[in-house]
């Protein structure tokens, strides 16, 4: 019998710590599939964030280091300079990348560090229990915006791809969502392209993944998927924001 589906070699056979309906598991698997398909598992170094994905080294079957909150791009920049022929990527959430690590991501992008950034946008701080993130939508309830995000008090959601697109150093920026098979396939194509850009020496690439967080949103998984599609994707427009890889 022909085997058409199995665990990627780049994914360990460990139970993960993610909540039911969370998008992290999907994106972890996509990355593992892509690393396998590109044949780069033995030369990949992943940088895990602080947040729900901090234990990523328990799930991926290649070298992974932890980094302080928000600093994965600085760590990745150095790993890549020391080992330029390795594949180096960061995996960061919205608090990590778009709040405490804004400086690091902007300057990594501006240097056009030849790295790949996978940015998970689930509009809240998941690990710490669902506080407001820089990407929390106006009116959205979190544990620190209990009556909904008031833009007069807390400002507006940060559109990371659009912000980074103004920088000369960014080569490839795309926003995707992991809500259904068609969109998951699109997400995979985008993430693969971002890794390929690094292999081709193009410079800085980032894929923003709109991802559900049912437990902290107080929604069941199906409602959460609907929220990503109907609410998040309205504010954070899907598609290629910038592509200078050709």
């Amino acid at each position, binding site marked *: 019998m022909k085997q058409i589906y199995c665990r990627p070699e780049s994914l360990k056979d460990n139970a993960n710590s993610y909540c039911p309906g969370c998008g992290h598991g999907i994106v972890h698997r996509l990355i593992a599939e892509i690393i396998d398909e590109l044949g780069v598992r*033995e030369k*990949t*170094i992943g940088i895990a964030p602080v947040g729900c994905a901090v234990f990523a080294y328990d799930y991926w079957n290649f070298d992974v280091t*932890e980094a302080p909150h928000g600093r994965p791009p*600085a760590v990745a920049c150095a790993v890549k300079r*020391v080992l330029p022929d390795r594949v180096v990527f960061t995996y960061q959430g919205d608090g990590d990348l778009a709040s405490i690590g804004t400086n690091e991501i902007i300057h990594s992008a501006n240097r056009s560090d030849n790295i790949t950034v996978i940015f998970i946008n689930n509009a809240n701080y998941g690990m710490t229990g669902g506080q407001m993130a820089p990407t929390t939508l106006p009116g959205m309830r979190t544990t620190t915006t209990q009556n909904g995000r008031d833009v007069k008090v807390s400002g507006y959601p940060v559109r990371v791809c659009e912000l980074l697109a103004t920088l000369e150093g960014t080569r490839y920026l795309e926003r995707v969502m992991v809500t259904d098979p068609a969109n998951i396939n699109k997400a995979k194509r985008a993430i693969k392209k971002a890794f390929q850009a690094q292999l081709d020496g193009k410079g800085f690439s980032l894929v923003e993944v709109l991802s559900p967080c049912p437990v902290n949103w107080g929604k069941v998984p199906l409602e959460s998927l609907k929220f990503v599609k109907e609410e998040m994707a309205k504010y954070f427009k899907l598609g290629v924001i910038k592509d200078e890889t050709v």
Partner: protein
Amino acid sequence: MKGNEAIAEAAILAGCSFYAGYPITPQNQIPEYMSWRMPEAGGSFIQAESELAAINMVLGASVAGARAMTSSSSPGISLKQEGISYMAGMELPAFIVNMQRGGPGLGNIQGSQADYFQSVKGGGHGDYRLLTFSPSTVQEAADLTAEAFYLADKYRNPALLLSDGILGQMIEPVEFSENKFPKLPPKDYILDGCKGRNPRSLFSLMMGPGVLEKHNFKLAAKYAKIEAEVRKFEEYKLEDAEVVVIANGIIGRISKGAANLLRKDGIKCGVFRPITLWPFPYAEIKAAAANAKNVLVVEQNMGQMVEDVRLALLDDSKVSFLGRPGGGCPFPEEIAGKVREIIK
């Protein structure tokens, strides 16, 4: 050579292949020198967007196996405490230079020793220790730089050169010695891709029951080993000393001048100069002061290392203190005058 430049060159000769830093006075000659010298030596130089980024770049370079360093001055070193704590927890070697300036806050740009507590009592969060070296000459700064890289790798722990704005700007002759340290085994913890081996990970988050406590016990055992194996100090005219001046770095050097002035007048004064501030030479200080009637601790702060001297002696009665904070610096005459006052 200027102190700052000598440290940079010594780092290159010690095999440092990665530097990241952010401008701050009075250490700018280090990144300026590194900006051309490091690429010439085949390494990487990055002017980082902040001290936070710089120390985390050093963390990344160390993850990848490079001998890596950063340098800064007091306010910038405060920002680097995050990465220092993480590297201590992850057991990553690194070399950090603090050319101290006056504080607290933005302070000024004169030499200072006000970051003693920050360096040897924690600085960053968590239960860790930082190898800390205090040079008193440009030559010693260069020599300690080479040794700090070696010891950082040997013990998988960050190491700090705690100097000051005076030594950084001072021009003195310096000879760069051949690398005299034993060869270390290959680094079996670095992340360079899992070709031919199982994947590795580096982390400091340890959430399971008792896991972090076990890690802290392991670190403590390492620190105890370092304390037993690494202790550097200089003893100057202590054989017959009735007064012992204890001072580190540039103040230790100035104190030797004071001892010479006093000896001309028949006052038997010697100097004990700790070179490693952690590990601190407690036992050696106790021995050095055993036969002295008086001990004077001199610092460019309002009393930090003096607390460790008191711990070493467990006898407060003969300890006096002279402090010049905020960039103040005593001449030998001032130190000699203080000695005359306390022996009256």
